């Protein structure tokens, strides 16, 4: 049964969405949110939605309770009440699916919908019930329409008998029929590359983690099937799982080309560019080992990687150690390339702008 409150509920959700949009910068950098997102839904704390009243300050009001207090005698004061770890204000939490969250983000950041690459539009067949037919298996029989047909036939033939209203004959039976529709298949793979050399500290990784959460959320809302790969690199690149990705810290130097090579290898082995929309996000502090390797990277990108990708994003996270030159080399070569997005992320607050730079291309 549908409830009357649904209308109010819809309006309430709209108000919450408005509040989230207004406060999006805060939410985008809200790491607690990400930590709790095990499932498809995310609980968003909303502070400012309430009907304010003239009311007593709950912390100054005091309470009357009942019960013995520990091992103290009656009448003595200053004894501690049994554990009452308080949260003075009832915190309102709204539940959102990640898809809804992605929509809110997209509206506020004005993210364009992604146009999958033309040649990758795979045709997949999708069956859907549509219409009726006069033959079919018994399991698909539609009794309501069958009786209607029978009734119509009998009335037309003037053999309708109210006492014994409907007699079904074979011609009356109606069955559900289906159509097959071609549907564009949209597979996407996100490959995250991250520099885990000594110069990337926990603060930098937190930024990467936060950005990756929003990128995942957005791309998952755009494609049916999204796979995610993680590659860490210092002087050598390795493919790892998510937990390792965010927790590894190596001390070695940095050879970025190693990561690009591994990335290429993964693509050629597992993700045929004709079937997959491929996204590569690379985060580093921009401290590469030597000019020669940087040149190597540029060549690799230009000749081998970019033709296979939808989008290559490079986010340079500021760190105390990094020299930060890698982004300059990329800027020189790919500044205006329509499948490359470059972003410098100075701190948490910069995440907002950076997400916009990455995803604003609509690729």
């Amino acid at each position, binding site marked *: 049964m549908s409830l009357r409150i649904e209308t109010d509920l819809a309006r309430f959700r709209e108000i919450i969405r408005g509040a989230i949009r207004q406060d999006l910068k805060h939410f985008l950098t809200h790491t607690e949110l990400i930590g709790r997102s095990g499932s498809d839904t995310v609980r968003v704390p909303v502070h400012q939605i309430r009907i304010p009243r003239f009311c007593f300050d709950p912390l100054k009001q*005091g*309470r009357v*309770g009942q019960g013995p207090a520990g091992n103290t005698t009656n009448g003595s*004061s200053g004894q501690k009440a049994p554990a009452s770890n308080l949260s003075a204000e009832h915190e309102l939490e709204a539940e959102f699916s990640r898809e809804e969250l992605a929509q809110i983000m997209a509206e506020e950041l004005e993210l364009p919908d992604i146009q999958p690459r033309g040649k990758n539009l795979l045709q997949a067949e999708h069956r859907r019930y549509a219409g009726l037919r006069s033959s079919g298996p018994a399991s698909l029989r539609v009794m309501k329409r069958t009786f209607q047909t029978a009734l119509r036939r009998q009335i037309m033939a003037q053999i309708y008998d109210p006492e014994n209203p409907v007699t079904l004959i074979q011609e009356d039976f109606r069955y559900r029929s289906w159509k097959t529709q071609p549907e564009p298949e949209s597979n996407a793979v996100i490959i995250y590359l991250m520099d885990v050399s000594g110069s990337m500290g926990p603060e930098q990784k937190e930024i990467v983690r936060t950005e990756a959460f929003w990128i995942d959320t957005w791309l998952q809302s755009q494609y049916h099937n999204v796979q995610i790969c993680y590659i860490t690199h210092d002087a050598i690149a390795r493919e790892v799982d998510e937990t390792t990705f965010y927790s590894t810290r190596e001390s070695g130097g940095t050879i970025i080309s190693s990561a690009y090579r591994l990335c290429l290898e993964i693509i050629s082995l597992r993700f045929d560019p004709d079937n997959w929309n491929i996204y590569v996000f690379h985060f580093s502090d921009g401290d590469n080992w030597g000019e020669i390797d940087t040149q190597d990277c540029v060549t690799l990108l230009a000749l081998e990687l970019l033709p296979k990708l939808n989008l290559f994003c490079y986010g340079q996270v500021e760190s105390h150690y990094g020299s930060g030159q890698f982004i300059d080399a990329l800027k020189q070569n790919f500044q205006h390339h329509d499948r490359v997005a470059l972003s410098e992320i100075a701190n948490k607050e910069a995440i907002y702008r950076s997400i916009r730079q990455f995803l604003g291309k609509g690729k």
Partner: protein
Amino acid sequence: MPLTPELEQVRDEIERLAAANGLDFFPVIFEMVDAGQMNELAAFDGFPVRFPHWSFAMKYDHLRQSYRSGFHKIYEMVLNTNPAIAFLLEGNSLTEQKLVLAHVLAHADFFKNNVYFKQTNRNMLNRFTNHAQQIRRLQAQFGIEKIEKFLDSCLSLQNLIDPLHPFRVPVKQPTGSNSVPDLTPALHSAECRTDKPEADILLFLLEHAPLTHWQEIILNVIRDEAYYFAPQAQTKIINEGWATYWHSRLMAEALLTDATLIEYADLQSSALASGPETLNPYKLGVELFREIAAQDDENGIASENDCFGRVTDPDAKNNGGLKKIFEVRQLHNDLSFIDNFLTKEFFQRHQFFYSEYNSVDDRFEVNSRSFSVVKKKLLQSLTNLGSPKIRVESANYQHQRGLLLSHAHDGIDLKINEARETLANLFHIWQAKVCLETVVDESRILLEFDGSEHHEQALD
């Protein structure tokens, strides 16, 4: 859904039993609802229809999350109407339903007989439906957002009524123009303060604020509903205590079987659980009723209540105690109930205490176990429906049509940031500067809102 035939039979039995014990109630219509519907009803304060507003959804959303997590379960809802309407939760066990049926009948008896409910509109279901209609019509005419914004402001002031004078009708002074409020002579005085501060602020606004016709309709709806719910809020402890007293007695004396005893005891103990954090109104109320019944019995024939509140000596029935509690349920609200019957001896037996917040350790700590202190705090928390006492002092403050409110501070500060937001909502209705005199950390201050900015100034 109506009651199942099985429950219908049980209901007949319990109604007969309740009537035989002297309970006197309006006819009760029972409906079975599922948990979702029950949460919806609770969000609507018990009624199946309310005016459209998101705040009901906020409450519902909270209840829904809490129900799903297993934090609460609402067993019943009873409406103060004639005939009374009661909602029972589907899928409860027979024992649970028996308990709830008995509980509900006692509530219905309370609504019918308690003096604070005597004047309430017993046809409120229709009234609420009309309110919903009115507001929907206004929405259609002026747009959802405009109406919603005004509703937000009105709801923000909903607790600013005078529970001691519930039946006043706004008298709009005849005025030439709608935009200038006609102020009573007292309000024009040089001091700019009235001799008689007005506690019914919603009434004052209806009479003096520059309201358009549709705004007046909305404010009237909000005030009407606020006064309708005031007796409920004034009788939480005594009403729940009364209902609990009777369901315990009827269960123990007639409805329990050996097989259902444990289940009942389990239910009862969770309903009456009382902790240091909050006072359980069911527990406090039922214990007071048992106390009153037992004490007045002692004056006549001595009798003892056993652990179920059952009078062990059957000959002791229908004596002074029983008569007394019927009288108490008729004449008292929470405040007078506790003031009159919470004795020192009862207080010590039940180990009440008063605790205060300690900001250093971020927790509440026991501050006092003294009878006079704790009782005073308890009574204070029940005074004026638990809301701060705020009154209109002037409607021409500083000769600028400013609205001056004062908070009669009795030891507890207001929540200042929320007070500021409320002032802004008041401005939306009053359309000129609004001020509130209050006390923060023992110094008097004046909060002002002039439509764009908040100001605060010290008064001492």
